[in-house]
């Protein structure tokens, strides 16, 4: 019952969110602010995680290839495909669900319990649209860029780890990342990043918007936003993979 209740209310919430903004100049300014806050503010953590995961994927693949007949450039192929297909879109989005999702839910939840949302409603402003729509647009717009940056940094991290440890020669790795390259993998990853960006912003916005009580509930809603967003990302990852790669 609870699941059905939240699912129904979530779709009604989306209907409220996708309303015409009160004033376009205010809306565009909000989007720029959100891109800066949610997207640019996440660059650091995306870069750090990508470089290390890229390095670890390369080293683990290299250490697990025991047969001498398997060429070294296979490490580059494996690192590239892992990063493009799964790591940069899904894992980075899961990390963003934690960072950005909790930020959105706690910000909106605090506004709810301190009556700031009531103040917007009394003024005749659609508070759901005013607060959440710029975040949705910003996340849908910026998430693909974060994913592309993560791809570049992850592949670079793999190259650096292979080259500096001597496990994979630089030339072999570079050949590997170009070998049998399928450009659609990037498109697939970007499609996923758009969907995941939407899920993170709307689910976190939903939990924040319907917070009741005080600071304890804000914390609970923030946790719920992260958990539900993460589960939905995993579910939609499965669905999109079947739809796009089958």
């Amino acid at each position, binding site marked *: 019952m609870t699941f059905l209740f939240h699912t129904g209310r979530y779709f009604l919430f989306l209907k409220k969110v996708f309303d015409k903004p009160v*004033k376009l100049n*205010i809306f565009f300014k909000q989007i720029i602010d959100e891109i800066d806050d949610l997207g640019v503010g996440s660059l650091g953590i995306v870069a750090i995680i990508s470089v290390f995961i890229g390095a670890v994927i390369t080293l683990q693949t290299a250490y697990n290839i025991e047969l001498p007949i398997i060429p070294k450039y296979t490490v580059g192929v494996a690192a590239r495909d892992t990063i493009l297909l799964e790591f940069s879109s899904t894992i980075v989005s899961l990390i963003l669900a934690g960072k950005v999702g909790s930020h959105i839910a706690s910000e909106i939840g605090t506004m709810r319990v*301190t*009556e*700031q949302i*009531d*103040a917007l409603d009394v*003024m*005749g402003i659609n508070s759901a649209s005013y607060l959440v729509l710029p975040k949705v647009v910003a996340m849908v717009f910026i998430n693909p860029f974060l994913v592309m940056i993560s791809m570049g940094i992850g592949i670079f991290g793999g190259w650096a780890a292979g080259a500096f440890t001597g496990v994979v020669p630089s030339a072999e790795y570079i050949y590997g990342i170009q070998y049998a390259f399928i450009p659609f993998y990037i498109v697939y990853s970007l499609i996923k990043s758009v969907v995941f960006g939407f899920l993170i912003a709307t689910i976190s916005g939903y939990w924040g918007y319907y917070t009741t009580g005080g600071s304890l509930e804000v914390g609970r809603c923030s946790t719920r936003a992260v958990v539900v967003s993460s589960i939905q990302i995993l579910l939609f990852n499965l669905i999109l993979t079947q739809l796009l790669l089958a």
Partner: protein
Amino acid sequence: MIEVKNVYKSFDGVEVLKNVSARFEPGKVNLIIGRSGSGKTVLLKSIVGLHEVDKGEIIYDGRSFTNMSEKDRKQIRKEIGMLFQGSALFDSKTVEENVRFPLDVFSDLSVAEKKERTNFCLKRVNLENANNLYPSELSGGMQKRVAIARAISLNPKYLFCDEPNSGLDPKTAIVIDELIYEITKEYNMTTIINTHDMNSVMGIGEKIIFISEGQKVWEGSNNEILISDNKQLNDFIYASKFLKQVREGFLKKGI
């Protein structure tokens, strides 16, 4: 004028408002008083549309707020200013941005005109040098004054205040009360204040409605409240030992 006609409101089967009817007059400070949990905040929030009533009607100057579309309600909401219990200022905005916010959203004024209006509102609440401060840098009384400045920025016809004195010292509370009273007279607004502060009741309560357990029990002015023989009202007013002794003293002397 705002009229409340036979309003009922319940939450999860618990009736909070039971057949409440009242009239709030323009150019007057109207007070809703009652104990904590008596339903006065629910009544105030129902009047401004934050809660939908189960039965009954809310009427703004002949316009039925209860039965109108959301689009028409938006028009009335532009005529409303509201002061919340915790001020409800936007944390991420400065004092100036908070006061300018309704103008940014609803007016077509130029940047200079909005700046002028914002400064006028801040001057009206005696906060001329706080433009660039954030709400977290203000005292409780200053936050209330900024909230009043924001509430009057669009020249509202109706002003609602939910416990405007909560958390304030008695002196600051009187300053806020006097400010609300003066603004009500200046703009000829219909002001409704939700309070259980007896200083406010005696100081600015031109029309008072006493709510107990979700029902209107008494109605009158601050002059009539002291001589009322309504037991529930007297239990509320004279809850403090000091006031009780003062009343008994007056009664003994036949005043």
